[in-house]
């Protein structure tokens, strides 16, 4: 019987260790590293490198896997890939600033994430498993930002991602949705924080999926361009909000943030605003 094994990616592992070693070497002076090996508390603890040994390719079903491991942490849109994540706190670091006038320091945590991805065929039979790792070094104890979608493709069958049968034309994965908020004009609008998620535009509609949604579920918000009566970008100091008014009287705001940063992604804001304007014009002109 063919047994499936997750082959450790030795090169990646060596690179990861080398990078960690260099990071540690770089702060040898005045830097204290306390090695640990504990679960971070943020991720699940019921998966490890032997998890895949419980499943037999061609015999275990997707149902068997979910029954055994519980709800996955991520799923591809076509459900042919399930991902489970564990996270370890591998070390605490403390940097003591020395020199004249210095008296401060900083401290933080080094995390190691393991992603276990299980592949299934179109009938839902388990095929293979793979493991990827990601290291994160942060100040404080908050978990690191993990960028990598672990799936081979967004749809594991290789087809472009669709929403309601339409291909996505424009999208932004670091967006925040503020439902019922009119840019910066609503009461207390400056202090409101939106729901994080993924903004996507097809030829006929705008869709928003929250970050906590599974990829196999429909977006929580879908606005046909035909129903949009106005779109604009509101500015306040460094902030930008894309504001969409609908014929029904509802209003939605979106903050579109740079993928690697905290400030608004101005080109993306403008591109999305222009795209919506160009698609609503024919209807708007008729009204």
């Amino acid at each position, binding site marked *: 019987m063919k047994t499936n094994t997750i082959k450790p990616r030795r090169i990646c592992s060596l690179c990861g260790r080398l990078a960690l070693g260099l990071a540690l070497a770089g702060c040898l002076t005045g830097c204290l590293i306390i090695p640990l090996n504990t*679960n971070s*508390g*943020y*991720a*699940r*603890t*019921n998966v490890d490198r032997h998890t895949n040994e419980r499943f037999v390719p061609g015999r275990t079903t*997707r*149902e068997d896997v*979910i*029954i*055994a*491991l*519980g*709800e*996955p*942490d*991520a*799923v591809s849109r076509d*459900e042919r890939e399930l991902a489970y*994540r564990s996270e370890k706190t591998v070390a605490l670091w403390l940097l003591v600033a020395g020199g004249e006038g210095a008296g401060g320091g900083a401290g933080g945590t080094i995390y190691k*994430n393991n992603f276990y991805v299980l592949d299934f065929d179109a009938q*839902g039979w388990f095929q293979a498993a793979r493991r990827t790792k990601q290291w*994160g070094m942060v100040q404080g104890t*908050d*978990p*690191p*930002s*993990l*960028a990598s979608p672990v799936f081979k493709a967004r749809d594991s069958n290789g087809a472009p991602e669709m929403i309601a049968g339409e291909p996505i034309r424009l999208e932004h994965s670091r967006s925040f949705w503020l439902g019922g908020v009119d840019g910066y004009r609503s009461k207390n609008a400056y202090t409101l924080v939106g729901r*994080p998620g993924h903004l996507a535009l097809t030829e006929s509609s705008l869709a928003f999926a*929250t*970050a*906590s949604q*599974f990829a*196999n*579920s429909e977006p929580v918000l879908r606005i046909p361009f035909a129903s949009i009566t106005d779109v604009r970008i509101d500015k306040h100091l460094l902030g930008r909000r894309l504001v969409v008014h609908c014929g029904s009287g509802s209003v939605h705001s979106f903050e579109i943030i740079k993928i690697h940063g905290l400030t608004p992604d101005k080109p993306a804001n403008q591109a999305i605003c222009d795209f919506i304007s160009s698609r609503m014009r024919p209807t708007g002109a008729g009204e």
Partner: protein
Amino acid sequence: MPGEACDRSGERPHRPFGHLLASDRGGAGFGTGAYRMFSLLVLVGFVALVGCATTPPPLKGRPDLLAFLSDGQTTKTDAISALGQPSGSFESQRILTYRLGLEPRNNGYYLVEREAGISGWPTWRGAKFSLVLVFDDSGVLRKHSLVKVNE
């Protein structure tokens, strides 16, 4: 005075914190007023400490939350009525999943929403268990499992 008689016999009258009193030590120290003040402070401190004792938060969990689940009998509608919308749904809603926390004081389960953490991935910080419900094509529970996900 009885007090004088006692002093003469070499015995000291027993008073709490009496060693702090000036009259008993023959020198500078607390007087009777100070003794009263000290007693008052002790009393106030005691009351303050009593005020610090908080009542425990209400129990979040229900030990019988999952008691209604019965393979071959419970329907999908029953499950959603009792537990609300699932946090995950797979294979065209044939498999539903819920996240549960555990209240150790009464071994009761409570529902936890799926939410993404700072990392962009969902966190299991508040949830300890994953409830998996598998239904047949007619929407009747075929099997279920309660998986311990987080220590």
